């Protein structure tokens, strides 16, 4: 039952094989049994989930069912859910019962989906290992001494552990794709502006983008059909035609040109990783695609640019966490300055404080041009690399992350080493391009992901390519031995 995909559950519910209440209860029980090991959920909303499931079954009985009616999912705890604790993985919001719904949560509700709860994440989405949550680290279901990736580590781990068939995530520098790669699941970061950011607690506003994590590309397509919407409440949300992402899943790959950036296959990338990625690309060649080497010459500047822009934006975005209107407030503040400093000092974890401070420093008087402006100029160079590349190729492929999941604690003392994990994912956020990670092999029993990068608003093609790959391979069906 827990191995069923969203597409299967959807059709099973339609066929009356089981009810939404039945599968919801089944998964809730499974979470209760297993998640103490993985720690992928922060909040499980059993009562609300069962009420939603019951309502979905009633809607179905009344003849008002759509493809999502009664299908269970869970949300990364960055999405505000009305009346439900929304922590962003932080002590700062450990008492924040969101008073409104994010557009993403509202879209799923409107579609009839059932939310099982809220998923663990790196605090305020800052991290690549999910070791930075106030609610404790998330374990990788493939190897419990390894990290699940981050920041959407709870989402990827929950899907990998078959606790939920699909989960929402967000991606600011790789936070959907890298955990998807580490956990052997499928995740897509859409084009910036495709999914509304309303109610998605901001880390870095010009980089953040919501997207799905699921077992298959087909499921991700179904989820994106719900998540993508034009939302007038988000000034950066784009009013661009939204296709049915499931309609083109089986399109032919014949004639496709795949670009392989030489910067993604440098000497410091392991031979095993290169082999896995080349083997995956070869599958597409068998289907009639051709491969071309390309260059993205400013790749090495993406991380430095990101670590100016993201901290700068977050330093302002998190200023509202001041202990006045919501969230954590320190005990007995002496005066307003003390209220601010201790609430924030005690409420934020170290990595969050570091990024706030880096951001404030780079924006401070005298440094703006050297850091922020320069980073924004470099950002354009990074984007232009892709614009040039897409004149020659249809998609770009490479590894999602340089390695499979690393060991917990391995990089916690060295923030910079952690940042370099995002070398292949970060540039897309700077450019605003869509990217997907699909499981494409294993190294030492740990999954690795193929990253497929598309042109703006080309999500349908990415999902199509993911689906075609999953028709001829079974990496996406593999599960950790103890969960089989």
């Amino acid at each position, binding site marked *: 039952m827990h191995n069923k995909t969203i597409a299967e559950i959807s059709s099973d519910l339609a066929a009356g094989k089981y009810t939404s209440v039945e599968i919801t209860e089944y998964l809730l029980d499974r979470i209760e049994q297993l998640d103490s090991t993985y720690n992928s959920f922060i909040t499980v909303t059993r009562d609300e989930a069962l009420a939603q499931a019951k309502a979905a079954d009633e809607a179905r009985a009344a003849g008002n069912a759509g493809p999502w009616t009664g299908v269970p999912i869970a949300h990364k705890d960055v*999405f*505000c859910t009305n009346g439900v604790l*929304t922590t*962003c993985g932080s002590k700062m*919001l450990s008492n*924040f019962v*969101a*008073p*409104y719904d*994010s557009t993403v949560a509202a879209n799923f509700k409107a579609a009839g989906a059932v939310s099982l709860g809220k998923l663990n994440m790196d605090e305020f989405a800052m991290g690549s290992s999910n070791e930075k949550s106030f609610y404790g680290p998330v374990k990788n279901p493939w190897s419990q001494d390894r990290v699940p990736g981050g920041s959407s580590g709870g989402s990827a781990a929950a899907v990998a552990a078959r606790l939920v068939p699909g989960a929402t995530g967000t991606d600011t520098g790789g936070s959907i794709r890298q955990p998807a790669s580490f956990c052997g699941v499928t995740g897509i970061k859409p084009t910036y502006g495709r999914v509304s*950011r*309303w*109610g*998605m*607690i*901001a880390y*870095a*506003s*010009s980089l953040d983008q919501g997207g799905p994590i699921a077992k298959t590309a087909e499921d991700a397509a179904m989820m994106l059909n719900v998540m993508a919407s034009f939302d*007038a*409440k*988000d*000034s*950066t949300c784009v009013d661009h035609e939204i296709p049915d992402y499931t309609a083109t899943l089986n399109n032919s790959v014949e004639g496709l040109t795949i670009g392989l950036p030489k910067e993604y296959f440098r000497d410091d990338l392991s031979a095993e990783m290169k082999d896995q990625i080349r083997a995956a690309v070869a599958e597409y060649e068998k289907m009639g695609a051709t491969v071309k080497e390309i260059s993205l010459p400013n790749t090495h500047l993406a991380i430095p640019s990101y670590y100016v822009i993201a901290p*700068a*934006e977050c*330093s*302002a975005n998190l*200023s*509202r*966490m*001041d202990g*006045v*209107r*919501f*969230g954590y407030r320190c005990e007995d503040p002496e005066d*307003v300055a003390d209220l*601010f400093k201790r609430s924030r000092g005690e409420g934020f974890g170290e990595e969050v404080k570091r990024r706030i401070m880096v951001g*404030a420093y780079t*924006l*401070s*008087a005298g440094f*703006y041009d050297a850091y*922020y402006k320069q980073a924004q100029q470099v950002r354009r160079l990074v984007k232009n690399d892709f614009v040039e590349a897409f004149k020659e190729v249809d998609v770009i492929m490479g590894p999602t992350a340089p390695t499979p999941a690393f060991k917990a604690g391995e990089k916690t003392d060295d923030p910079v080493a952690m940042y370099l994990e995002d070398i292949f994912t970060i540039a897309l956020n700077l450019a605003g391009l869509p990217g997907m990670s699909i499981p494409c092999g294993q190294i030492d029993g740990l999954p690795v992901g193929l990253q497929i990068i598309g042109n703006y608003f080309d999500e349908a093609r990415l999902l199509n390519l993911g689906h075609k790959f999953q028709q001829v391979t079974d990496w996406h069906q593999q599960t950790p031995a103890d969960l089989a």
Partner: protein
Amino acid sequence: MEWEVVIGLEIHAQLATKSKIFSGASTQYGADANTQACAVDLGLPGVLPVFNEEALRMAVKFGLAIDAEIGKRSVFDRKNYFYPDSPKGYQTTQLHYPTVGMGHIDIELDNGETKRINVTRAHLEEDAGKSVHEGFDGMSGIDLNRAGTPLVEIVSEPELRTAKEAAAYFKKMHSIVTYLGICDGDLSQGSMRCDCNVSLRPKGQQEFGTRTEIKNVNSFRNVERAIESEIERQMDILEDGGKITQETRLYDADKNETRSMRSKEVENDYRYFPCPDLLPVIIDDDYIEAVRQTLPELPDAKRARFVADHGLSAVDAGVLSADRALADYFETAAKLAGDYKLAANWVQGDVSATLNRLEISIAELPVTAEQLGRLLTLIKDSTLNNGGAKEVFNALVEGKGDGTVECVDALVDSMGLKQVSDTGAIEAIVADVLANNPKLVEGYLATPVEKRGKAMGPFIGLTRKAAAGVNPQVVMEVLKKKLEELG
């Protein structure tokens, strides 16, 4: 040493939009605390701003009114600072690309000359909330109803040289924004607030002295007084060989002095950067031209027209054009009566006196412009004399009318004020007056002919006393004739 005063003003004008600059919450003044603060205004996690088109239109309108460059691409920035009434920990404003660029206005000086004051820029931004310090048991209460109200901050060049000029500039800006209808101009509610930057330098010196900023002055009179007291304070320090500390000060109107603001002591590093939740605002020439079409006649143009077309003095025209509501009232009455000068006298006389006495605005005056126009018409056609008209006016002020124009005529009748212009009737009254005052007549006849005009005064007074409502014009003619007959 002789000092030169350098003053620059930053005026915050709240834009009269219905909803806030970045949210759909109401901007109405006076609501219960935090009942008009929505999720966006509260800065809850996850909320996002969307820009109000009317705020943009109003800012562009202002820019056109002061002949400014209009920013075809304006960008919102975040100005970072922590304060309990600043819910996001930053204010959304425009640093490098304001909607309104360099413009100018003219102010009238006491000597009747005008002085051009350049306006550096006017940028759009959001207002903050309010802290209430009393009544919370040693705590402060935060009300965020005002948070997110759209503001234009109008920044002048440091070209003002006296406190009077500064007050005149503030008044002129008030006049312009209320003419445009983009701000209600209500100073008592904080709809317009003024920060005054003041410094002194030895006369002839090029570089500026150290300035202080007096925050949040909210009346014309206080702008003048606050600056004057600050000039004195600075001059005392400088004359004693001291140095001015660059700081923010508050004006205490009761003590008529400025004092240092403790909370702003730490020099802030605002860390401005473009707001990533908002995109550049782009407008084109068509947009700007469409807004230009909606510009009303502005105070300067109106004043010039009052002088050129209707023969008013520059001073009268200035007074009558400064406030749009007053100007509209005046012109409506003047047109109905067909006499701008008469209307000017009345509006600056009885109308203004009444407004001052009752401390009300022109909109609240019980006498409508149409009623005044009718009253003036009745003076013009000699139905009423000036005194009678005043009586009717006062009756209307006291609420005796019903708001209609017709009630003016009804009051004239019921109060028996219709002027006697019938020569026969007046001749009889004059004959009586002359017969009853033989000594005055003797005195008059003894007066040399060239001085007799003045000596006629007492007879006029007596005649009018004998019969209220006599037409003084006719009285004069009859008196002249009768007295001439006597000698």
